[in-house]
């Protein structure tokens, strides 16, 4: 083989890898859209499922997913942003603690999602909820807080998505020019004023990106909520932090594996998958777009 031919061969081989991966993505998304699209209707999005879940709509699952991710966002964004601010604005470059925090954040990102499920059950439901019950109600046979519910599931997901928010926010803080900080400090602002009034407003896009990525990740995760609050079927919408909830991802799992009549459930299944896919993919595309904007700012 001549050297030119080898050159072309390597380019072709690696290009083939790209084509294969993109092709698979296209097949997955295409298949879901093809079968799921005919299912979508206003009624499908706004109705209760029928009792055997082969018909009706998926409104409770959408409602539960939104409630869950909203609660999760309320918990994770302040914590993630505060951690990123501390890492980038307060901890020095040689801070030992900052190195440990960073290592912890990276490790947290790699913890298997099912382990988060065990942690949520062991810590939030049994330990935290159980302790509240012991202190307030004192009747171990009738748990009030010490049982799976939307609050515990949301907090579990908040821990899971914490690294996403921290890493994205820190990147956004890095993109804020030093001059702005120095100008603020030079005008006599305290460090905190500089952070709150100058740095954070300029990092808005990045913080929003982190939030969107966290929501997208949190909305799609099923393993962590298996034991912390997701329900197969509920005849009512959750109205209390302690209620269980239906969830799009969990609904997909239930319809695909535990339905008594898988064939009959298939249309509803495809429809649910499509809704979940549209939700997570559109959030991610939005995040990618936002990020490309402030990355361009960072480069210039």
């Amino acid at each position: 083989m001549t050297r030119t031919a080898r050159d072309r061969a390597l380019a072709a081989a690696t290009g083939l890898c790209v084509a294969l991966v993109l092709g698979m993505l296209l097949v997955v998304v295409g298949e879901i859209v093809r079968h799921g699209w005919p299912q979508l209707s206003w009624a499908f999005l706004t109705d209760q499922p029928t009792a055997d879940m082969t018909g009706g709509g998926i409104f409770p699952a959408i409602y539960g997913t939104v409630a869950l991710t909203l609660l999760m966002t309320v918990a994770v964004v302040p914590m993630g942003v505060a951690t990123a601010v501390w890492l980038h604005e307060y901890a020095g470059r040689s801070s030992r603690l900052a190195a440990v925090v960073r290592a912890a954040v990276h490790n947290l990102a790699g913890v298997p999602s099912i382990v988060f499920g065990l942690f949520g059950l062991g810590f939030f439901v049994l330990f935290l909820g159980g302790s509240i019950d012991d202190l307030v109600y004192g009747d171990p046979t009738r748990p009030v807080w010490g049982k799976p519910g939307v609050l515990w599931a949301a907090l579990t997901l908040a821990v899971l998505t914490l690294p996403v928010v921290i890493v994205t926010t820190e990147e956004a803080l890095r993109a804020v020019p030093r001059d702005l900080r120095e100008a603020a400090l030079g005008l006599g602002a305290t460090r905190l004023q500089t952070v709150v009034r100058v740095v954070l407003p300029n990092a808005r896009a990045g913080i929003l990106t982190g939030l969107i990525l966290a929501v997208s990740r949190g909305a799609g995760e099923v393993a962590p909520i298996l034991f912390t609050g997701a329900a197969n079927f509920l005849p009512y919408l959750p109205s209390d932090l302690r209620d269980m909830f239906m969830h799009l991802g969990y609904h997909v799992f239930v319809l695909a594996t535990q339905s008594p009549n898988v064939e009959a459930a298939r249309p509803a299944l495809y429809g649910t998958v499509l809704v979940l896919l549209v939700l997570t993919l559109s959030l991610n595309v939005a995040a990618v777009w936002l990020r490309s904007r402030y990355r361009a700012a960072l480069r210039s």
Partner: protein
Amino acid sequence: MTPVNETGDAAAAGAPDPAVPPRDHDESEAADVPRRKSRRLADSFRTPWTHRLVERAVAAVAWTAIVAIAFIFVFVAREAIPLLYERHEDGSFRLVDLFAPRQWPGYDAPVYVWQPVGTPEKFNVVPLFVGTLKVTVLAMLLSVPLGVGCAMYVSQYASRRVREIVKPVIELLASLPSVVLGFFALIVLASSMQAVFGFRFRLNATVAAVALSLAIVPVVFTVTEDALSSVPRSLHEAAIALGARKYQTTLRVVIPAALPGIAAAIILGFGRAIGETMIVLMASGNAATLAPFDPTTSVRTVTATIAAELGEVARGEPHWRVLFLLGLMLFALTFLLNLAGGLIVRRLHRRLTASAT
């Protein structure tokens, strides 16, 4: 705040009083200015206590990630550890049976069996780890070449415009919820693969591995691409100056320089594959068989076992505790893999940036 002067900057940045004395000196020379006034002046350059309080709170919140890691360990262990000292007088549960084969009544030879609902209950974790390893290795065989290939194309061959489309799209693959990939494997992939390859079982290790590799490729790709792109330009230029072709530069200069990064990508991808739950739960068939070298049998992985069985078990039973113990082992394993992967990546970056200057 009082009017700004040239020392405001330093005082605001949290430095204590050293900036103040000269001024203090000036004013005391201007005759009987009360002492208190100079102290008030000094105070005005100090960060207000409310700001300090908020800063303390921010510093405290920064501990969350560390505390979270510690709590995950503690509270998963809390449910598992009593297994080690709780006594099971009826002899139904023995710790050694978790790992060693045992000749159960009705069996001809000692065996490794996971059969938590049988009588007696049999909790041997070996088949589960064999299952996890089988699916993971198969998935890695697919996703490492694909991920590294994509990374090579994007970092070495693609034009800037192509790169800026292809890279985010591959990373978009990582954002597909694993339950969607599991669904795809279960409903679409399993049947078509059975039709093509004639598998005996519709759901098996290979089907799960193919779906799993879709989730792993972006991990391998991202880390590898990062390593390949951080190889300094000077190395490229030196190779080209010596008359090397593009493929020679790529294979003999760039790849060797970035090799630790590729190793890290494999380690991190492996860690992700071991911990993936929904895909294997839905697509692997979930039969705890012990056939380590047959890729066409159904398998039951560690993660799928926890997900499928924990909901059915009462708290405090040996079965409950064994499931948490599985989680603990999984956590320990992925923790070590992530630690190793992260360490390699950081070292590589330091080496490459050092050699660039």
